[in-house]
């Protein structure tokens, strides 16, 4: 196996490893919405006031998954 093939293999392995991060962000988003539903079912009257915070938390959490996805894409297409 020559160096060029090895580099391509390493690139794909790296992209695969980077994609694990999206799963981690999935855990975060799941926790976020799960906890929100948990709270919302206990006190449905507070839902309206907290919706903005929910969406904000979702965007910030989801961005971390996007960062991981970005690294994977960079490895696949730009390196």
């Amino acid at each position, binding site marked *: 196996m020559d160096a060029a093939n090895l580099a*391509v293999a390493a690139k794909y392995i790296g992209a695969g490893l980077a994609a694990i991060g999206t799963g981690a962000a999935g855990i975060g988003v799941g926790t976020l919405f799960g906890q929100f539903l948990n709270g919302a079912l206990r006190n449905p009257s507070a839902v309206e006031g907290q919706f903005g915070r929910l969406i904000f938390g979702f*965007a910030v959490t989801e961005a971390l998954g996007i*960062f991981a996805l970005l690294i994977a894409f960079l490895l696949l297409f730009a390196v």
Partner: protein
Amino acid sequence: MAEPGPAINPIEQFELTRVLRIIVGNADVSITNSTVFMALVALVALGLMSMTAKGTVGVPGRLQSMGEMAYEFVEGMVRSSAGEEAMRFFPMVFTIFVFVLFANLIGFFPYSFTVTSHVIITAALALLVFFTVVIYGIKEHGLHFFKLFVPSGVPIYILPLVVAIEIFSFFVRPVSHSVRLFANMLAGHITLYVFGSFVVMLLAASAAVKVLAILPFAMTIGLFALELLVAFLQAYVFAMLTCMYLNDALHPGH
């Protein structure tokens, strides 16, 4: 990559091309497709927003209520996250919000260019906010501004560590602020492109496989809806974080 079939090149859509070549000295200040679309975004935003403000009447029509909704939305965001005094920064926050929102949305049109998918654009916006916070904070509060880095009620023996972390996180802000927006737009457009090219690849295959093209096509439609949400959300988050950082400039000290 030695793969058979049509090659996927999702990066191509972000390429900058010179529309008008201008070289001043050693600096390349050419008009690129990014410049053209930025001007378009500014024009559309300005045109639409001034149309909503023209001839306001007691009972607002569709356009006017859209403009008022946008105004009240950002107003509520500024007031709730940075306080009453932050309203002097309202024009800046509103401009940033509208510019980012329109840039994100215009990027969805086929053959168009997403201005916010380039880190240089978002970094410029984030640095604008960063320097506004620093300059306004120091001008208004003087040395008191640096209390931002010294949280109250921290035991003295871990204070140096906390201060170091606070200073570091303060200077990392423009990085995370800009990368969040740019990475979301970039990854969103790449994902749409990849699923779109799956449709093309399956349609190029034999008749039995062609039917399967409906699956990535449905996925593309779903992703498009998600990306529309993300386009709005990221504009909201960008403006929201701007408000939170401005809050530090207005009320330093925890």
